[in-house]
């Protein structure tokens, strides 16, 4: 079946329909990761957006349910050049076609995704529609597209109730260490599948309790803490600061999430209260932006954002550059930072935008990129260890002063 992608500026791409058969209006963004389409699809930060993959061959290794970053896919639509008709990977459970259909995600294939990317790069992110209606009327559609906003999406993607995750008691719970997985033919033939390999080499977070605010969290954030031995309580985004403080966590983690941070007005108020405590805080992506807004800084929408697994970020303290996984359309305005409150910790090497903040006089640091990776490079996963170290030294500080 034919499908059309209609952009706010009137551009129409004709392709083939994939996934669910429904029309959708959304914000069109592109992601440059060459692998990891499932992680992209299940990243709640894509709620309210339709994602175009710039890599042309998608679906090659099918869907490995283990790799989902949340319980379901979130984008409104999926845009690819070619969906592999066949998939091949030892862990693959089914095809991406089936996955999209079952999750009611419409999409379009067979379009020139590079041409689309260039339009978005030049004109900035814009809204669009995916439809199979060959009789589409541009004059009717374009006003609808212009009117679309992602709105308050955090509420849609956050968990409804808090839940607890027990930290790993020993490393073997995490699955094999990366590189040491042994293959046992008999197990495989018996249907036993390998767990994902783990990077974590010690349980430095044992005995630490983290309160994790879920604004649209990717599972690997909680997992990264859990694998290090931390006990994690995941709270809905709407949880009050008081409830969290009452739980007396050793540290607070603010997750990633979708949409314009400025829409999260009530959450920002609660985050300010968390800031005012002495509890160590680590925040990622939307969490990072919300902390900035809560402490008087500003954010703005980028022309076309950063979405992919190849973005270099520089640690300003050490000068080291790390390749990071990114997914954000908004960024903290570095020009409007009050150095008495926060100073830049990381910047993007390509465009110089802010990628992280240290909070002056506080045990708080936040990053714009994704140290939990999935998909993308794992280079900055040490930040979870840095967070744990920060919690530990804060504890020592407290006991020393007591």
């Amino acid at each position, binding site marked *: 079946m034919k499908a059309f992608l209609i952009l706010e500026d009137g551009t129409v791409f004709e392709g083939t329909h994939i996934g669910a058969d429904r029309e959708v209006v959304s914000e069109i963004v592109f992601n440059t990761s060459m692998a990891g389409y499932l992680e992209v699809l299940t990243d709640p930060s894509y709620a309210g957006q339709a994602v175009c993959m710039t890599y042309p061959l998608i679906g*090659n290794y099918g869907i490995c349910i283990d790799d989902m970053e949340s319980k379901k896919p979130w984008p409104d639509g999926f845009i690819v*050049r070619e969906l592999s*008709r066949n998939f091949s*990977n030892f*862990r693959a459970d089914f095809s991406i076609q089936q996955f999209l259909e079952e999750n009611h995600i419409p999409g379009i294939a067979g379009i020139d995704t590079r041409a689309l990317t260039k339009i978005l790069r030049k004109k900035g992110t814009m809204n669009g529609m995916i439809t199979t209606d060959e009789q589409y009327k541009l004059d009717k559609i374009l006003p609808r597209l212009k009117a679309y906003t992602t709105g308050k999406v955090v509420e849609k993607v956050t968990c409804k109730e808090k839940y607890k995750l027990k930290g790993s008691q020993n490393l073997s719970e995490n699955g094999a260490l990366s590189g040491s997985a042994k293959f046992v033919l008999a197990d495989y033939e018996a249907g036993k599948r390998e767990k994902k390999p783990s990077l974590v080499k010690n349980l430095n977070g044992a005995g630490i309790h983290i309160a994790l605010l879920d604004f649209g969290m990717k599972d690997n954030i909680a997992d990264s803490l859990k694998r290090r031995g931390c006990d994690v309580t995941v709270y809905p985004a709407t949880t009050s600061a008081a409830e969290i403080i009452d739980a007396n966590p050793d540290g607070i983690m603010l997750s990633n999430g979708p949409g314009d941070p400025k829409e999260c007005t009530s959450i920002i108020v609660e985050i300010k209260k968390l800031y005012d405590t002495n509890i160590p805080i680590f925040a990622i992506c939307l969490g990072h932006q919300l902390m900035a807004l809560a402490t008087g800084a500003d954010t703005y929408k980028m022309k076309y954002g950063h979405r992919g697994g190849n973005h270099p970020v520089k640690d300003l303290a050490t000068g080291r550059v790390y390749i990071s996984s990114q997914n954000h359309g908004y960024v903290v305005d570095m020009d409007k930072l009050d150095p008495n409150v926060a100073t830049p910790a990381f910047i993007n*090497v*390509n465009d110089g935008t802010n990628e992280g903040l240290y909070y002056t006089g506080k045990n708080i640091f936040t990053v714009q990129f994704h140290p939990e*990776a999935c998909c993308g490079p794992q*280079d900055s996963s040490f930040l979870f260890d840095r967070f744990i170290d920060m919690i530990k030294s804060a504890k020592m500080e407290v006991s020393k002063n007591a």
Partner: protein
Amino acid sequence: MPKNPDVRKVMVIGSGPIVIGQAAEFDYAGTQACRSLKEEGIEVVLVNSNPATIMTDRDIADKVYIEPLTTKVLEQIIEKEKPDSILPTLGGQAGLNLGMELEESGFLASHHVKLLGTTAATIRKAEDRQAFKDTMEKIGEPCAASLVVENVADGVAFTNTIGYPVVLRPAYTLGGSGGGIAHNQLELEEILENGLRLSRVGQVLVERCIAGWKEIEYEVMRDSAGNCITVCNMENIDPVGVHTGDSIVVAPSQTLSDKEYQMLRTSALNIISELNITGGCNVQFALHPTSFEYCVIEVNPRVSRSSALASKATGYPIAKVAAKIALGYTLDEIKNAITGKTYASFEPTLDYCVVKMPRLPFDKFITAKRTLTTQMKATGEVMSICTNFEGALMKAIRSLEQHVDCLRSYDFSELDTEALLRRMQKVDDQRIYVIAEALRKGIDYDTIYNITRIDRWFIDKIAILVEMEHALETQPFTLELLKEAKRLEFPDSVIARLVGIEESEVKQMRYENHVTASFKMVDTCAAEFEASTPYYYSCYDGINEAVETKPPKKVLVLGSGPIRIGQGIEFDYCSVHATWAFSKAGYETVIINNNPETVSTDFDIADKLYFEPLTPEDVENIVNIEKPDGAVVQFGGQTAIKLTESLMKMGVPILGTKAEDVDAAEDRELFDKILEKTQIPRAAGGTVYTAEEAKTVANRLGYPVLVRPSYVLGGQGMQIAISDKEIEEFMEIINRIAQDHPILVDKYLQGKELEVDAVCDGTDILIPGIMEHIERTGVHSGDSISVYPAHTITNKVKETIAEYTRRLAKALHVKGLINIQFIAVGEEVFVIEVNPRSSRTVPYISKVTGIPIVDLATEVIIGKTIRELGYEPGLQKEADYVAIKMPVFSFEKIRGAEISLGPEMKSTGECLGIAKTFNEALYKAFLGAGIDLPRHKRMIITVKDADKGEAIEIGRRFEKLGYTIYATRSTAKALNDAGVKAKKVNKIQQESPTVMDLILGHKIDLVIDTPTQGRDKSRDGFLIRRTSIETGVNCITALDTAKALATSLENKNDNPLTLINIVTVQTS
């Protein structure tokens, strides 16, 4: 970190002659690095023995030494030039080893020379097997478990700890004989017992078998601050067991999920960090196909063939960045040259698919085993880019120029299912065609996977191509079908064949319906950032983004495709120089080529680079967009020449010598007329199509005769026949491939072979010099030792050659380059062959005379005259030194290849010996080719009867040099009768010790073996020659070469060599 101010003068070590496994990629890397160093104001001293390279040009480095790559020579150059640093990581394994030797001997320290880039300690850690294994263990990175055992029990016990299957490799057996794979204890005991017996030291290596695992590579960069990135990952379609250089490789990986991709990427970064590498590095992994288990196969702490491929696949200039890192820069300080906005500290992301295919030399070595193993055999490779895998594969196939254009190009339809499955077991260059046939026969993916271990995703892609073939054959030929076939990159010719219509009809249907190729940019960033680098590939499913330019003048330069025997790096040298010369003259330049190893496919050589197959259809797509004012074909070897006719049909004027004149040189009858008109003699001969005609001509001329097809490269298929029987044999071989042109049969003349390259402006000619071959006629000019200036001919012969060259150039209306080969018999000069185009000797003669003939030829093509360019026409004054070009072979890499020299070219590369005297130049040339004698002062002589007289003289000279001579029965008798002491050794079938035992004893310096005429006539000789090569014994098959070697050894002394900075060389 900014540039280290202490680095001011750097010596760069090149990789030496082109051999299999070490080819043009190091010219690309070296050239890029030298330019990058000069950009930083560094004085560059370059050493490389290979004169065919661009890196040895006077524009590339400040001082250029085309000298043998030995530590002694490098020490001398360091003493003379006093560089403060050396950069050894750009010259392949050869360069790296030399750098290490200089470091380890303490020479660098005592001369205050720093090793730039990766440190010696790091290189040792990466190169030493045990040290590497220990390091990997320390950081928890797995290697395939292995143990050396001396008895069966130990082997069984060890295998029980690592699991079956295991690979068994007996130590010190020829070509790995006695080894194998054991799947169970019974097999293990059997193979191990046999292997222990065969091994000279009674040892067998037992290793975890990872054959059949996925082979994945990562190209990694790291700077001194510890920042690291991966440039690219690549997936070998052929699983572990086939050398990655011989595998079909795809970039990026296609069948890895992000979990596997990142697991291996993290491992690669951990490894490069632990090894403390600064610069580029290649990490190869074996990944278990059905688990997360992996093994580190190998780490190359330097730029490599794979890094050249990764550079071209992504647009990220690895060598250039590695050079900057060596100077102290960090990745975040180095700009990404493609976008000009981002930095080198980011990872390229692709929005296309890249396929690399090896160019294997089995068309040259028809006796060789086609089996692909862990020993690389490919001489070169092609790369293609498309928006889909199928298209990239189709493009790669037709880029190979091996008479293949689709998955039907090798026909296995005769085989039934059973035979096909058996054929599929054989791992060779034809396997994908076998798989395609299996799919046609309905064999399921699992069966194919279980035999080949090629991932089902790739099998499915092959199936898609097979289905398209079927659809074209059986379904109505609709526009939709045409579009889909073109999206999969089926060429018009293949579509026409399958549909059963004319190619022109397919083309017409395409043009009428606007189904035309569009071009996309390679920009390192999947369009995320604006890029201005005009590096393009074609596809049929997108909007064209090649920028239309209308410069005053635009020229199309056709590259020479994959490196193969007979068409090597020399033609890339010519293409690049022509491009630069056109550019200097104000032309916009457009290059089309498909070879990822070369300088010409670097994105900053021409104004525009099209990475495309060099077929008429692909070229026409580019012509339609670029509308060049002309095309130049005379620099790109046969690949470009073959496109002449098609270009003319497209309405593209051929710049320089006209196509009909090129034809006249190749067409026997036309050429004979020209010779008659110009009164130039040639060996009598005739043109034939059949064996009967050939025999008639041969008998009229009298044997021996030379038989060869016209329009061929490097004398392919050329043979000297001495009888009707041989004529029949050779004609059968030649006619195995349908011949569009007649076959030539010429009287074989024995004399001195001479060669010139000249520039002609239509009126005047410029001959930089005459080259003389050491080997008599019958040995291909590319395999002969070539001496400049010609040293044994009279002035009269020289004058005759200059005069004939002038006449021929004029008669053929040459505008540009011409190459002519002559035979001088006494004072009489005959012409053998005329090529109105660039030749393999062009870079050599340009460098040793200081006359840049490609530049001059280009200027002439544009319209200048030789006089206007400041040269006096005619034969130029001879230089006051001697320069000798020595061929270099890769026979040890190709099992079963016949090594004896003949009219068909077999060498893969060359090196130069340049000195004040003939003898020193000869010595240097042998040294550069790796012949560093004497060692044990023992040799074997076994020659055919006709050669016995000459062999006596040679024997006498070697005896004088202190050599003990062994000889087979009749040769020994001849030698002893003439008073040359020779010990008789038994032939192979006779009782031990035989000549084979002697060779295998590793105590022999040299074997001189002249083969009896014809192929496969003497299994004994063949075995002797092969065994010598495989055990590292020098083997000479032409008596003239042996004489030259004797001369070189007679004049060897311990004096330091005279070093010549080639930049200062000139003839006047």
